[in-house]
C-alpha cells in the first residue's frame, strides 16, 4: 500500500494548483484524476479570457491548464489518471482511498486529503421542464464537450435557457459553427453571467437575450422539435397566457452549477447550504480534520484564477497539516451577501493573509463592504457596484484584531443608493 502526505482528488485547475502547492511545501503528494488527461473542464473551454488576473494574459482554457500541467510535470508530482476513487475512509493516521483503474483496485493512504472535485450542471428536470423526453436536450457543458472535444455539432437551431457563463460562451461557439441561436432566455430579471460575456458572446453576435423568460415545455417524440417559452413574474413563476412555441432542434441549458461533494459527504464533511460546498476555515480545511476543499467544489467560481488560488491555499495548508485542536469562530455573511468563503476562522491558525471570497445577493450600486467584529466595524471597502455573477475577493489580516472564542465576525454590505 502506498502512503502519501497529501492525496488530491481531481486534476482540474484546483487540483493541479493544490498538488503543486502541497509538493512545494514538502508533502509527498498524489493526484488522482478520473479522466484520461489532466486539466478538468478547461480541456473543453477553447475560448479565451483565462488567466487575466493571474498572468495578465488572455489564455484559452487548455493553455491555462497547460501552464499548471507543465509545472506539475516539472516538479515530478505523481498522478494517476483514468483512476476513480470509489471509497474514502478515515483511518487512525489519516485517510485511505480505494482507487479503481485499468490496473485493478488499490488502496492508498494519506495524512491529508484535498477534494478538488469540481461541480456538475443542473439538469432540465431540476428546473421543472416538462413535456416529452427527446434527443436534443443538453446542458451547456455537454454541448461544449460534443462541439469542442468530439468535433460534433449538437444543434443547427437552438434555444439556450439560462444566461450562465457557459451558456453565453456556447451561444457564441455554436453561432461560429454555423448553428442558429434563437436566443438566450433567462428566468431572472438580470443576467447570470459575467458582463463581459454578455457583450462578447451575445451583443457582438446579435444574439438576443430575453430576461424574465423561461422554457416550460419541450416537444418532439424523437429529436426535439420545439420548446415552449413562458414569461415569468418576479418570483420566477410562469405567467399563464404568455406561452409561445419556438421551433428548434435543441434546448441548451445553462441553469446553474452544483459543487460535487458526494465524496466529501461520505466523510461527514459539513456543507454550507448557501455555497453547497464544505464549510471551511481560512486554511480551507473542512469540518473534518485533514480534509481540505478548493475550486468549484468549495463554491462556484466565475474566474479560473481564483480556482487556482484556492487550490494553492488548500495545497499549502494540507502539506503543513498536523492535527491540532481547532478554536473556530464563525464568519457570518449578512443578508445582502449571497455567501462568503471561508465560513470560519481558526484562532489557532495564522490568519494574517486570509482571503475572503464573497458575492452580493442582488445587484447593488454604491455600496460599502464591512467587517464587524463584536459589534465594532474594523474594516470597510467601497464598491461602485456589486453583482451576484461577479465574485469579489479581499485579503484581510485577521491577526490584527482582538479575537476570542466568543468573538463574532460579521460581514455586511451597506448600500448608499439602490440600483
Amino acid at each position, binding site marked *: 500500500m502506498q502512503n502519501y502526505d497529501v492525496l488530491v482528488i481531481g486534476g482540474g485547475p484546483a487540483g493541479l494548483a493544490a498538488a503543486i502547492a502541497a509538493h512545494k511545501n514538502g508533502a509527498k503528494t498524489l493526484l488522482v484524476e*478520473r479522466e484520461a488527461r489532466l486539466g478538468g473542464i478547461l480541456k473543453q473551454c477553447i475560448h479565451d479570457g483565462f488567466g487575466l488576473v493571474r498572468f495578465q494574459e488572455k489564455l484559452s482554457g487548455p493553455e491555462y491548464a497547460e501552464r499548471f500541467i507543465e509545472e506539475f510535470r516539472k516538479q515530478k508530482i505523481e498522478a494517476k489518471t*483514468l483512476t*476513480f476513487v*470509489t471509497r474514502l475512509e478515515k483511518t487512525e493516521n489519516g485517510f485511505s482511498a*480505494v482507487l*479503481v*483503474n*485499468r*490496473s*485493478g*483496485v488499490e*488502496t492508498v493512504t494519506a495524512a491529508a486529503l484535498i477534494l478538488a472535485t469540481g461541480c*456538475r*450542471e443542473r*439538469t*432540465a*428536470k*431540476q428546473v*421543472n421542464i*416538462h*413535456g*416529452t*423526453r*427527446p*434527443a*436534443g436536450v443538453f*446542458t451547456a*457543458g*455537454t454541448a461544449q*464537450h*460534443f*462541439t469542442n*472535444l*468530439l*468535433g*460534433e*455539432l*449538437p*444543434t*443547427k437551431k437552438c434555444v439556450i435557457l439560462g444566461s450562465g457563463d457557459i451558456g453565453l460562451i456556447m451561444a457564441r461557439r455554436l453561432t*461560429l*459553427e*454555423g448553428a442558429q441561436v434563437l436566443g438566450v432566455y433567462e428566468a431572472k430579471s438580470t443576467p447570470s453571467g459575467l458582463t463581459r460575456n454578455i457583450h462578447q458572446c451575445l451583443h457582438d453576435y446579435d444574439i438576443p437575450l430575453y430576461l424574465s423568460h423561461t422554457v*416550460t*415545455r419541450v416537444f418532439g*417524440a*424523437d*429529436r426535439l422539435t420545439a420548446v415552449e417559452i413562458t414569461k415569468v413574474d418576479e418570483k420566477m413563476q410562469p405567467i399563464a397566457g404568455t406561452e409561445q412555441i419556438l421551433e428548434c*432542434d435543441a434546448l441548451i441549458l445553462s441553469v446553474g452549477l452544483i459543487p460535487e461533494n458526494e465524496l466529501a*459527504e461520505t466523510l461527514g464533511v459539513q456543507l454550507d447550504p448557501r455555497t453547497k460546498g464544505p464549510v471551511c476555515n481560512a486554511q480551507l480545511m473542512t469540518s473534518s480534520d485533514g480534509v481540505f476543499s478548493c475550486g468549484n467544489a468549495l463554491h462556484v467560481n466565475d474566474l479560473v484564477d481564483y480556482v487556482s488560488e484556492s487550490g494553492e491555499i488548500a495545497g499549502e495548508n494540507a502539506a503543513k497539516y498536523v492535527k491540532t485542536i481547532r478554536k473556530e469562530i464563525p464568519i457570518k455573511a449578512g443578508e445582502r451577501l449571497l455567501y462568503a468563503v471561508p465560513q470560519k476562522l481558526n484562532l489557532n491558525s495564522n490568519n494574517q493573509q486570509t482571503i475572503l471570497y464573497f458575492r452580493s445577493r442582488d445587484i447593488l450600486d454604491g455600496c460599502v463592504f464591512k467587517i464587524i467584529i463584536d459589534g465594532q466595524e474594523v474594516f470597510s471597502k467601497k464598491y461602485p457596484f456589486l453583482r451576484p455573477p461577479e465574485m469579489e475577493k479581499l485579503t484581510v489580516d485577521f491577526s490584527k484584531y482582538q479575537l476570542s472564542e466568543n468573538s463574532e465576525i460579521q460581514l455586511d454590505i451597506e448600500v448608499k443608493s439602490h440600483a
Partner: protein
Amino acid sequence: MNLNQVNKKLDSRFHGAVRAKLSSGCIVLSGELPTWQETVEACQLAATKYSTTHVVNNILCKEVKDIPMRMPKIQDSALDGRTPDVLIIGGGISGVSIARELSKWKLDILLVEKEADLALQASGRNDGEVHPGIDLSKGSKKHYYIRKGNAMFDDICRELDVPFRRVGQYVCFNKEFAKPLVYLYCLYRKKHDGISDTKLISGTDLKQIEPNFAEEFKFAISNPSSGCVCPYGLTIAYAENAVQNGAEIALNTAVLDMEVENGEIKSVTTNRGIIRPKIVVNAAGVFAEDIAKLAKDRFFSIHPRRGTNSILDKKAGAYMHSIASVKDLTISKTHSKGGGILHTVHNNLLIGPDAVETYEKENTETHKESIETVFSKQKRTMPKLSERDIITYFTGVRAPTFEEDFIIENGRKTKNLIHCAGIQSPGLTTAPAVALDIEKMAVQMLRRIQIVEKNPDFSPIRHGVPVLKDMDDKQRAKMIQKNPDYGVIVCRCEEISKGEILDALRSPICVPTVDGIKKRIRPGMGRCQGGFCSPLVTQIIAEFLGVPLSEVKKSSEDSAITFGRTK
C-alpha cells in the same frame, strides 16, 4: 346489473346520448359524447368490476383526435414469409415472460415489438413494486394471479440475475378510531382472500421501522412480502433468456393488419413483411384492443390511464427503505393504487404515480401538475420529501379495461388467438404466473394441430452484465485483471465502467443506443442525468458500431444526438 338498469343509469346521466346494447356477450356502448371524461364515465357506469362481460366502447367522442400509432421508420421484408408457431405481439413484461416460458418447448417463437427497445411503454414506466395484493378480493384474475406471482419473484429473479428485494409495504393510517375496522379488513383479506402476510402494526413499531414517516400515523397495514424490482431490467432479462433459448425478438416491428378467415388468423402484416403464424398472443398493452379488432375478436375496450413518477436522488434514498402510502378514510373510487413512496432496488426514492384518464395511448409527456399532486399527497407520509431532490420524472400509460381486470383467455371468436390484455397494476407482479398459464394455453392450442415437445436445451439461467460497483474490492480487481475496461469508469454517478457498457453492447439483445445502454446498465441514470457521460457513451457506441458519432441515436431512428462534424 341487467341491461335495462344500465340504460336507465346512462339515461339519467347522459339524457339519451348513450345507449347500451348486448351483442355477442358484450355490453356495447354507442352514441355521442363531447368529452373523453364523460365517455369513460359512461363506460364505467355500464361496467361491472371484475366481470367477464366486458364493455365495448363505440361511443363517438368529439374530443378524441385520431392519433395514429407511433410507427417504426424501418420498412423491409426481413420477416416476410416467416411461419412461427407462436407470434407474440408486444415486448412488454407480458410478452417477454410468455416468450421465455414458451421457450421451454421446441417451438418457433417470434415476438414483435414496434419500439426500438423492449419495455418502452408501461413496463418501463412504472414504479417496479411487487405487490402483496392487499387491495384485491377473490373473484378477479388480478387476485388469482397476485399471490402466485408474488411468491415466484425470488426464484425468477435469481434465475434471471435481476436484483429484487422484499422491502415490505406499509399502508399508514392517521385515525386511531379506524383501527378495529381496518383490523377486520385485514382479517378478511388474510382469511378470505389469502393475503397471508397481512398484519397490523402499531404507530410505535412503524416509527421504529421508518423513523422519517409522519408523526401522526397511529397504525399501519404491513405486508412484508412486497418488494421492489427494476421493471425494465426484469423485462429485458426475460427477453434475453427467451432469446438464449431460441426465441426470436424483432424490434421496430409493428403489426399493421391481419387476415382472418373462418375464425382463424391466417397472416399478420407488419412493416417488415407478412408473417403466417400458427397462433398469436395479444400482449399489446394499450393497443390490445386494436390488435383484438384486427383479429376480429374485439370484446373489450381499453381506456388508457396515465401516471407520472418522480425519481429522487440516492441521498433521499436514505430517508426510508420500504414502500409506503397513506390511506384516507374516504371510500375512494380510484382504481389503480393512488401512488406512494418506494425505495427502489437501486436505492433511489420513487414518488407516484398519479392516475389521469386519457385517450392518448402513447402520450408520455409529463406535467407540472402531476408532480405537485403526488408530492403534496406523499409529503403527508414523509414530511421530509422535497421536490428539490428530484433528478427526473417520467410518465407511463396503463392499459385497463373498464372492468379493471386482466383478460387472460383464448379468443372468443378467433380460434388461434390468446389474449393477455387489460394488464395494468399489478401486472408486473402477476407476469411470472400469468406467463405460466399462457404457456399452457398456447401449448394446448398448438397440440391440436401439431406435436409439441420439450426444448431439451432450455436453460432458465440468464447472466446479466456484471455490476462491478457491487463487488468487493478483491472480486472487482479480479474482473479488471481479466478485462481492464472494467477499471475505466465512464458514468461517475452510477459508477459504470467502459467494460460494462461493452458487455451491454454484446448482450443477447443488442440495442446500441444511448437509452438502450442506459436501461441495461444505468449510465445516465444518476444525479447528473448523463451530463458527463452521455458524450462518452455515445463515443463508445460509435466505436463499437464503427459508425460516425452522428449515426448514434438516443433511442428511435429519428433521435440523432449530433448532426455531423463541426467546421
